[in-house]
């Protein structure tokens, strides 16, 4: 079942075009990763999905009653404690007081924030505030779960816990959409990847369709801003590029023409 569908959606702020003709659907149980450079329109797509923003043209259809959203940065000057905030959010979602309390504590425990449950929100560190934002999104099993760079600021333990939580949500039927810059996270979490380039949806592929190129540098090439490259990792032994399979040939040719050497070319499977 399709939970949300963007039909020929465009978004403009004044004369600036943020999105152009984006056509994208999201099914229940799917984990969609939106990738692309900064300013490519990923966050705008997410805001359109949850109804925080309205399209300048086109249509957004949502078939979800319970919608959860995690913004890219969660800041709060609230004197409410994290657990009290979550209890309130649970009550707003229609949970009983007891259910809201139990679920809050369970999520805080899983995200390793149980010790900070009574800390006022305004005193939480960036990572812990992010955990609270994630917990509120998962209080009630959502039908549509939208997260803007949810891994930002999380420690290693919470990193993998979040991946598990999102997978569980999808297994329970939630349609999950998130943005992320780390190719490793995208590969290990998403069931589908959509790439945005300056407001246009350029590629839709499965993570298994990614190719990793391990190269030894030659003449100067700016891979960070190459339109096909999803991720650049620099190692002692060279540079590792991640590209959609099918687009890697052209990048490979460019590298060879500039005197770069190829160590490996391998298709990447989800972990």
């Amino acid at each position: 079942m399709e939970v949300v569908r963007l039909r020929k959606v465009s978004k403009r702020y004044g004369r600036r075009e943020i999105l152009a003709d984006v056509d994208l659907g999201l099914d229940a149980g799917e984990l969609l990763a939106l990738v692309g450079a900064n300013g490519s329109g990923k966050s705008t797509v997410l805001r359109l999905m949850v109804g925080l923003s309205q399209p300048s043209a086109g249509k957004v259809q949502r078939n979800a009653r319970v919608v959860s959203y995690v913004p890219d940065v969660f800041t709060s000057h609230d004197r409410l404690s994290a657990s009290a905030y979550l209890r309130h959010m649970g009550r707003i979602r229609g949970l009983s007081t007891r259910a809201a309390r139990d679920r809050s504590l369970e999520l805080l425990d899983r995200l390793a924030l149980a010790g900070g449950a009574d800390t006022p929100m305004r005193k939480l560190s960036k990572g812990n505030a992010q955990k609270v934002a994630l917990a509120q999104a998962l209080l009630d099993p959502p039908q549509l779960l939208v997260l803007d760079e949810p891994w930002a600021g999380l420690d290693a333990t919470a990193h993998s816990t979040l991946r598990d939580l999102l997978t569980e949500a999808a297994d329970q039927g939630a349609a999950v959409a998130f943005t992320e810059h780390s190719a490793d996270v995208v590969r290990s979490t998403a069931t589908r990847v959509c790439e945005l380039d300056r407001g246009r949806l350029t590629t839709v592929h499965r993570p298994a369709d990614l190719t990793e190129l391990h190269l030894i540098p030659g003449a100067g090439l700016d891979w960070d801003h190459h339109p096909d490259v999803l991720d650049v990792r620099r190692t002692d032994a060279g540079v590792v590029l991640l590209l959609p399979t099918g687009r890697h040939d052209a990048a490979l040719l460019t590298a060879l023409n500039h005197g770069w050497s190829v160590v490996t070319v391998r298709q990447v499977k989800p972990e």
Partner: protein
Amino acid sequence: MSALYRYLLTSVLLSQRYLPPTLIFLAAMAVGTTSDNGPLQSSYAFCVLAMLVCTTWLAVSVVNHEDPTQRKITVVTVGSSLRVLTATVAVVVTWCVPLLVIGLVYPIVTGKHTVTAADLAVGAAAQLGAAMTGIAIGLLCSRLVVARIGVAMLAAAAAILAVLLVRWMSPIRPIMTVLSDEKPAGANAVPLTLLAVVSAILLTAAVLATKVLADRKE
């Protein structure tokens, strides 16, 4: 809606952001109405002025209290920015109730007045009208509409001056005119009730305008 209201009220109460406008209101009452032996309705005219300034400040403080990102979460969770705004206004109105009671009782306790039920009704209608107009101004000068706090403060001050100086711009000037005309309270009850209704309409329009303007920024 009640859960949302409880959340916003608890959050605002813990923040203590209501304190500065409340203290200003109490100070204004103490300065302007203590030991006043003139007509009670004239004291209530002063309360209207204090209530207008206090509720404008209070509305700006309460609306700005929730961080923008936190508010986005609340809006998505609730499913409607209008419902969040309505609940926010309900929180401000709740805080206005004790202020209104103080505004009604303080001049009577500290001054020498002959008090009738009609006087109290007139005072309540007048201050309610002022409170709703003040909240309307506060909403339109909040962060949801005006991003810069300095500009918002100037806009709020200009709006308060405008509603005090321009006769038919809002119900405030007519309310103060009616309270100062030295007619018996019974004769002023109907026009002041009507002006309070106009203030309620003004507040509703301000809520809708704030919603539209805030949504357009997204």
